[in-house]
């Protein structure tokens, strides 16, 4: 890791962040949020509320118009080595095999070949994809593609994961299974995660905190702490506590959908 880490500052701090597009449309307005190390925070809200924009602001892919974003006390551009981004599509390069895709970041950093191979093999093993190392993306199912995408994100040993609706295109069973796998990895690796989804159940299952955003302009409407016990498994979804938190989040979400 290249950046100098500071444990006394919040992992991610948004202070009065506004994002205005060129034609004047406001994506998010005056958002202030503090996210501590190890939190799993999910953004939930209607289309156009700026969920994905927030991830782009934290990653530095898009500059803020007003306010500030600090990642471990640094500007997002300087903190990129701490952050990995997982997109809605698996964004695998179709001309590369799975292992070549997973090793892309290390290759671009000119990492030594042996170190790269070793790390890639470990990450593929972590996401149960070793058997498909030599396959091309077109030979994989949707779930396998997303696991490859997660492995690629983990290769660079990130402290922070930004996940923009990564499981939205998958069927429910695959999504549930990947949610459980993600939490298994989260428990091992202790990242800070910013997650975007449209699914209330997924948000509640994964998160330590759910932030509900309202649209036009995007702003924080509610925050819910999720106090479901860990580890969370398939049984968690059948518990009354889970149902209660899903109901609570759904009610608050319905509120922001109403004009």
């Amino acid at each position, binding site marked *: 890791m290249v950046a100098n880490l500071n444990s006394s500052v919040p992992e991610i701090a948004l202070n009065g962040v506004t994002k205005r597009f060129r034609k004047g449309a406001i994506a998010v307005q005056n958002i202030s949020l503090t996210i501590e190390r190890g939190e799993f925070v999910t953004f939930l809200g209607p289309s156009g509320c700026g969920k994905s924009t927030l991830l782009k602001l934290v*990653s530095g892919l898009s500059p803020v118009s007003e306010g500030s974003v600090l990642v471990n006390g640094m500007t997002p551009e300087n903190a990129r080595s701490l952050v990995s981004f997982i997109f809605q599509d698996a964004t695998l390069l179709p001309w590369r095999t799975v292992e070549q895709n997973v090793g*892309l970041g290390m290759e671009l950093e000119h990492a030594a070949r042996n170190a790269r191979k070793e790390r890639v093999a470990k990450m593929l093993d972590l996401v149960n994809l070793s058997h498909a190392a030599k396959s091309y993306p077109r030979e994989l199912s949707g779930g396998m593609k997303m696991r490859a995408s997660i492995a690629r994100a983990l290769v*660079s040993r990130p402290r922070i994961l930004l996940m923009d609706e990564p499981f939205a295109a998958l069927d429910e069973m695959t999504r549930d299974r990947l949610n459980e796998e993600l939490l298994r990895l989260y428990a091992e690796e202790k990242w800070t995660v910013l997650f975007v989804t449209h699914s209330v159940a997924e948000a509640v299952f994964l998160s330590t905190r759910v932030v509900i955003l309202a649209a036009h302009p995007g702003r924080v409407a509610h925050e819910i702490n999720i106090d479901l016990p860990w580890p969370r498994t398939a049984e968690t979804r059948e518990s009354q506590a889970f149902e209660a938190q899903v109901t609570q989040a759904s009610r608050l979400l319905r509120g922001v959908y109403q004009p």
Partner: protein
Amino acid sequence: MKKRWLILNSIGLFACLVGVWSTILALAHIPAYILPGPIAVAQALHDRFPSLLNSLWITAGEAAGGLVASIAVGVAVAMLFAQWRGIRQLVFPYTVLLQTVPIVAIAPLIINWVGAGVFAVTVVTFIICLAPIIANTTQGLISVDQNLVHLFLMYKATPAQILFRLRLPNALPNLFTGIRISAGISVIGGLTGELFAGSTRVGEGGLGYAIIYANNQMETAYLFALVLAATALGFSFFFIVMFLEWLALHNWHESSRPQTAD
């Protein structure tokens, strides 16, 4: 089994065409200097084979030279267009002009500039092949999924890394589309160039020059053999490019996948 059936069908169709051709000649009493029969063409092919092969090699060399040069220059220009939007917006419309240039009109000019012979014909071929390469490659280079660009930016990739590791491989299918179009017209470009600048030695030159020469000498059967050779050359170019495209793309691109029933 299906493949053998297809080959037998093709041979059968060819035999039918030759039969129809011979029958029309016999029934209509058309003189051989106007339309020679298939046997006369085959005889001319046999008798003049070394000379025909020489012409074929000359045209193949000119067409291949022009095509390869157009690929090298076309890809370089497309990369400039992809990297600098301002240059693309300013210059790209002019590359369309290349496609509309009446090559027959400017071929004599090129001979004036570079002199008659193989080089002039290669230049004509290069000009005719360039526009499809530039247009298709540019399209492929700029049509990259924005998320993939973001991914590379997250890895702090340099502009050169984004160009060579992302944009260029992404543009390969488009590049091959351009090469396929240009491969077809490269032979036409070579023949057209030879009509004007065919040879520096009387009686020896590429297929275009030999066609004019055979026509002037009323060697119609040999002229037909030359036309067949030119057609075969065009086919060969097309299939060589198809093979190279398959080699480059078959592992990952939909266009190179065998079609299967769903």
